[in-house]
């Protein structure tokens, strides 16, 4: 019993332990790893995976999956690039929006795409995997259509048109990356909503046992749609940050990032079966992905070996997760027998 409790504590803290071990390992393996500049660089990457991962955690908690987030990020970035460079032409007049409006427009587009995902999944009963797989292609297609596949190489804007300042999301404020500030704000809100609001309880219940949730009066369809909308907004924000970091909009921005988002959530202990997940875990998971990726780059590990190692880490994480679940079930059964 005591042994089990110890193993349980270790298992619960495993993501943090793994992150610590990774940092120590890379600190020895590469001299440049533990410098301010490289840590800042890593954290900028982590912010992208982290924000996507937070939206993904909400979706996974309901027992769904959102494969379209990478494409949504691409669309959002391209919309921003288009609006800054070309403006919006209607009835022969071209309007140029300010940067805050552009960000808002991109986020609304993310919201709408998420809404469509949610409607297709709940009202048309399409499996989340398929619905969002379709949206992944559709989104990527539109991202390319906006510029016919071309890149908007300059997002600086024009003072005369009042749309300068887009690059702020990729910069630092008082030596601290804006992207990381956004991550912290979103993580904070998302964690509170998940743990401290009825909505959060409800989506955990939907993933834990959808039938019971419905019979308990949870508005399953409504809440599920909201979750996909949140994931869409997170993806749009990531699209803005990523293009801002590059100061250029490329239609393939965000390609395959949904996988990093899923990996971050799963590493953080979110169950693909639904019902289980924490925002803190996902943020730590995003750090693990970021540290592995950038750490290996700094050590000069080839890109191909990076893929192999990332894959191994993810599978290992799920195996440990499964082991924890078994142990938990065993301990619950034990407690039940002792109660008798």
């Amino acid at each position, binding site marked *: 019993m005591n042994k089990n409790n110890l193993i349980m504590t270790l298992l619960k803290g495993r993501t943090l332990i793994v992150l610590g071990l990774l940092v120590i390992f890379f600190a020895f393996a590469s001299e440049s790893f533990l410098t301010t500049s490289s840590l800042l660089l890593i954290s900028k990457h982590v912010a992208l995976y982290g924000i996507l991962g937070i939206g993904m955690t909400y979706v996974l908690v309901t027992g769904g999956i959102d494969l379209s987030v990478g494409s949504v990020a691409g669309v959002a970035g391209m919309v921003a690039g288009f609006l800054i460079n070309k403006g919006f032409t209607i009835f022969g007049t071209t309007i140029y929006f300010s940067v805050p409006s552009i960000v808002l427009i991109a986020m609304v587009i993310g919201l709408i795409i998420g809404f469509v995902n949610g409607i297709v999944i709940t009202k048309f009963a399409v499996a989340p995997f398929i619905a969002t797989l379709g949206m992944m292609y559709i989104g990527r297609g539109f991202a390319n259509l906006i510029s016919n596949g071309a890149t908007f190489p300059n997002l600086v804007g024009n003072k005369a048109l009042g749309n300068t300042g887009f690059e702020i999301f990729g910069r630092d404020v008082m030596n601290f990356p804006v992207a990381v500030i956004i991550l912290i704000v979103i993580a904070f809100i998302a964690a*509170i909503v998940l743990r401290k*609001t009825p909505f959060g*309880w409800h989506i955990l219940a939907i993933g*834990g046992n959808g039938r*019971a949730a419905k019979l*308990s*009066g*949870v508005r399953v369809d409504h809440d599920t749609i909201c979750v996909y909308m949140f994931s869409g907004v997170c993806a749009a924000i990531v699209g803005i940050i990523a293009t801002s970091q590059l100061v250029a909009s490329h239609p393939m921005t965000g390609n395959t990032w949904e996988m990093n988002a899923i990996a971050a959530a799963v590493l953080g202990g979110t169950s693909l079966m639904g019902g289980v997940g924490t925002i803190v875990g996902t943020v730590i998971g995003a750090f693990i992905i970021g540290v592995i990726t950038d750490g290996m780059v700094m050590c000069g590990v080839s890109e191909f070996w990076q893929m192999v190692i990332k894959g191994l880490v993810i599978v290992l994480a799920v195996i440990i997760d499964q082991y924890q679940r078994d142990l938990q079930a065993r301990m619950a059964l034990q*407690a*039940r027998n002792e109660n008798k």
Partner: protein
Amino acid sequence: MAETLNDIVLHAEKIDKIYPGTKALDQVSFDIRRGKVNVLIGENGAGKSTLMRIIAGIEKPSSGKLYLEGREVSFNSTVDARKEGIAIIHQELCLFPNLTVFQNLFMSAEHTKHGVLQDNEHRELAKKVLARLEYPIDPDTKVGDLRVGQQQMIEIARNLLIPNLKILIMDEPTSSLSEQEVDVLFHIMRELTASGISIVYISHRLEELMRIGDYLTIFRDGRLVAQDETKNVDLAWIVRNMIGKGKNYPKRKTQVDWSSREKVLEVKDLCLPKPGGGYLLDHVSFYLRKGEVLGLYGLLGAGRTEVFECIMGLRPLHTGTIIKGGKVLKIGELYEMIDQGFALLPEDRQRDGLVQPMNIEQNIALTNIGHYTNKLGLISDKAEDAAVDEMIKDVTIKVADKKLPILSLSGGNQQKCVFAKGALTKPDIMLLDEPSRGIDIGAKTEMFQLIYQYAERGVSLIVVSSELEEITAIADRVIVLSSGVKTAEFTGADITQQNLVEASYKGHRKN
């Protein structure tokens, strides 16, 4: 009864089957007579299906022995049992709707040559066996495209293909068959018994049993209570033995003049169409008075759960009028019905009642959590804690720490959590579907106390139960459903097990 060993194909000797918390079979010794239709009768949970599952190798007995033609046998799986010529046809069909008729028939008994499937041979044999059943279906038809009755025939055909078939167990095979198909089935059964195959037949349709059965065996509470040849018995004998005078729960004593109490709920002409024709509920009307415990009795498939589902908005296809507190109710989504003052305790606790990954507290507060928020919309731990603690005390859940996983509780306490979840919304009408299912006797009594307690406070409750002792003890009034038809209503001293059983078969007779 003096039979020679030769008359008995299988003998079960002192079989016990113990599940956590319940004894499903208690020292049952049972014979299957060769070339006869052996009929098993009993309430749901009386143990007849469990015994058959043991004989067919699906489950192992906790103790006891099986003798097949005098030789002791033990089965680890259905495969073992099938090798000995024992086959079972389940109540629920075990077919592959995505595959064709012949693929289903020869699943895991494929004929191959050098590892290649001999589909032409399959088709020929399939045609032959279907012809024997007088049921010509193209062997290439997808099973999913067949009607349920036809699928039932495929299931039977599949078992006829077992070489050396000795015993065929049929667990409620007629529940989905039309009158015509039942006739065909009985004809086939006669043919099978004539060729020496022994049949064990479980059904709830008493008239049917009297027609087809050679030997009747009655189960009650995991024990074999009576057996005889069909020609020696009548319907009254069956009902008497099914009921027995076993355990009795303390009867609720109320001195209430019910006619003076207001009707909180009135249901008029509730109909629910059955997919493929007919009704699951056929013009059911009833009312419920304030503070009343209304029992809803019926056999499996009588439409009891469907009544609840209609009221709770889960069956949008229903018709009829539902009046609550004098106003006609618009049946909407389930969460709207909860706001209207209803609470539902579903039949299947694990599937529909609990959210397993959440803890005790979260499960109890799930429905009502929206009421414990502050101005920012955040959950107020203080308000939520207090409400859950009070509810745990009110329904007496024995728990050390409400943050423990829900599955760490015993079945009875889990059920109380589901009850508490509904009670937390302060409903005026509670719909309880088999509230005492799968919990031990002690917890059952506590659940009944809980029901009385809430009724005394003015909550009106409808309780569905298939346990006669239970429903006769707790209900102020009982209505009986049979095949979707309300066949009777009893109050006071008329609530007897005999009356309920007889009424519960009436609708079947009509069909």
